[in-house]
Structure formats: C-alpha cells, structure tokens
C-alpha cells in the first residue's frame, strides 16, 4: 500500500494527459469521468477516442480495445494464483480495479511482502488508491487543460517505477531469463499494431523463464 502512493503520484502526468486529450476531442466532464471510472484503461481509451473521432464502427473500436487490453488477462491469471481462496464476490470486485500499476505494485508486495497480510489486502491496498488517483488526475487534466502536458521529465516516473518493481520480481535464473527475453522483445515489437508487442513479449518471457527453470530442475 505504501508503494502505491508514489506510483499513484507518478501517474499524474499521464492521467492529466489522458483527461486533457479526452476533453480535446469533445468529451464532456461526465464522459471523462465515465471513461476513467468504468473503462479505466488509459492507452485503450486514447485509441478508442481516436477511432470514435474518426467515425469508426463500434466493432472496430471493441476489437482494438480487446487487443490493447489483452495484457489484463495475464495479470488476472497471475493474481488468481494468490487470491483463489477469497470469496468470488471479493475477486470480482478486485478484478474491477485491476490495472498495470495495481498489478505491478501488489504482485511485488505479495511476493516479498509480509505473509501476515492477506494477498487481497496487498492488492486492494494498491489498487484502490491507484484507481482513486486516476479519477482525480484525469478530471484535473480535463479541467486544467494543456497546462500540465509538458511538466518537465515527469514522464520518466512511471517507467522508473516499473523498473524498480521489476527488480523485486527478478530473484533467480528463471526470472532473469523471463525478464531479459520479455524486455528485449518488447523493445523490438514496440511498433506492433494495437500494442500487441507487450503481451507477445511477456508470454515469450514466460516461456524462456519456464525453459530455464525446467533445465535447472533436471540438473538439480
């Protein structure tokens, strides 16, 4: 939960840019809030707005949204391994606030964290402040306009946070292999359509880490 606060703060520039971009294509405040609270996915929102603006049909928008947000399935799969003893209602509520940042902060908290604290509290302790922060930043962006779009250097904060969280997730040879392959492939595939590079790279990393882990078992 403590780790969620700097990350929530670091999301300010991106959240404000998304809010600002939304108001620029003609969204009212209610719609900005609707996107932030119900849709709650920045990159997919920007893509959906661009398509809406261009007059694309709904099914094209939905396919794009699914492609961009497909990575959420990976987070859901990973989290399910830690939350499966919770009642379904709790897990459903948790799913609603699942995001890149919530996953990144809470999975590292769960992996290295205090075993006394239930994984669900690790997760919600990160996910709820992040969700609330996102609402505040996007609305501020819609209201305050371009003012924030060029806050110097703060665009580095989120990648730096992901890098720090990565360091806590890399603990042995298999995870080194997973991170190396995923990171390298994600860099190569950065321009793949519909952000498909990220899930493809991550799953390749999983395979690489799995292979290294299996080989380690054979030698052990």
């Amino acid at each position, binding site marked *: 939960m403590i780790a969620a606060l700097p990350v929530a703060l670091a999301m300010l520039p991106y959240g404000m840019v998304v809010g600002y971009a939304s108001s620029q294509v003609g969204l009212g405040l209610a719609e900005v809030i609707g996107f932030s609270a119900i849709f709650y996915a920045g990159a997919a929102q920007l893509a959906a707005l661009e398509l809406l603006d261009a007059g694309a049909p709904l099914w094209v928008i939905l396919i794009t949204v699914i492609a961009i947000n497909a990575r959420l399935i990976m987070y859901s799969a990973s989290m399910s391994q830690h939350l499966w003893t919770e009642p379904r209602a709790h897990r459903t509520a948790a799913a609603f606030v699942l995001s890149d940042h919530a996953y990144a902060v809470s999975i590292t908290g769960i992996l290295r964290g205090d075993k006394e604290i239930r994984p669900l509290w690790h997760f919600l302790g990160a996910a709820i402040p992040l969700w609330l922060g996102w609402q505040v930043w996007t609305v501020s962006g819609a209201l305050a306009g371009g003012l924030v779009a060029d806050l110097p250097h703060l665009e580095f904060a989120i990648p730096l946070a992901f890098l720090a969280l990565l360091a806590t997730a890399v603990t042995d040879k298999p995870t080194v292999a*997973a991170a190396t392959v995923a990171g390298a492939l994600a860099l190569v595939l950065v321009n793949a359509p519909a952000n498909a590079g990220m899930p493809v790279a991550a799953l390749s990393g999983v395979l690489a880490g799995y292979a290294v882990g299996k080989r380690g078992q054979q030698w052990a």
Partner: protein
Amino acid sequence: MGLTPTTWVVIIVGGAVTFLLRGSFLVVAERVVSTSEDRRLAFRMLPAAALAALAFPALLRPDGALELTGPRPIVAVVALVIAFWTRSLIWTIAGGLLLVVGLDALR
C-alpha cells in the same frame, strides 16, 4: 460534440469487455489455481516478464522511436543499477529523475 451519442456506448460496452478481460481468471480462480509444479513455474515467471515488457519500452522507446544518443539509454542503465542495488521504489524513481534533471542541465 459529435461524439456524444456513441461515447457512452463505447464507455459501457468497452468497459464491460475490459472487465471480462480483468475478471477472466480472477472470477474463476478456484478452478484455475495451479496444482502442478510445471504450471506453477510458468505462473511464477509472469511478474518478471510482464514488468520487463512494460518498463523497457516505456523507458527507451516512449514514442516508438529508438534514440541511442539522448539521455534515455543512460537513465535506463543507471536506474537499472539503482533498482537492483537498492530494490527500492523511492530511490529508483528519485535517482532516475535526478539524473534526468542533471543530464538536462548539462546540455
């Protein structure tokens, strides 16, 4: 305001579809929890792989372009060292941002 009529449809249908992705495993977690060692090993790789796939492109190729001369490669290497050395979120963000500001001042 030409967007207005369909915007709410996109918000609600898109939000519902995204929720299905979010809930895909979590809602049925009791049925998908890994019991075999092999599956557990694969699931254990997900955090490192996902975080690396998020971090490196965001740090090095934020606009899709590859710049080898700018401050980004330096920041990436130094931040990686800080991250693994301190394993601290605050120190990595603070150190990285200070370096960015410092490199900017030197230019």
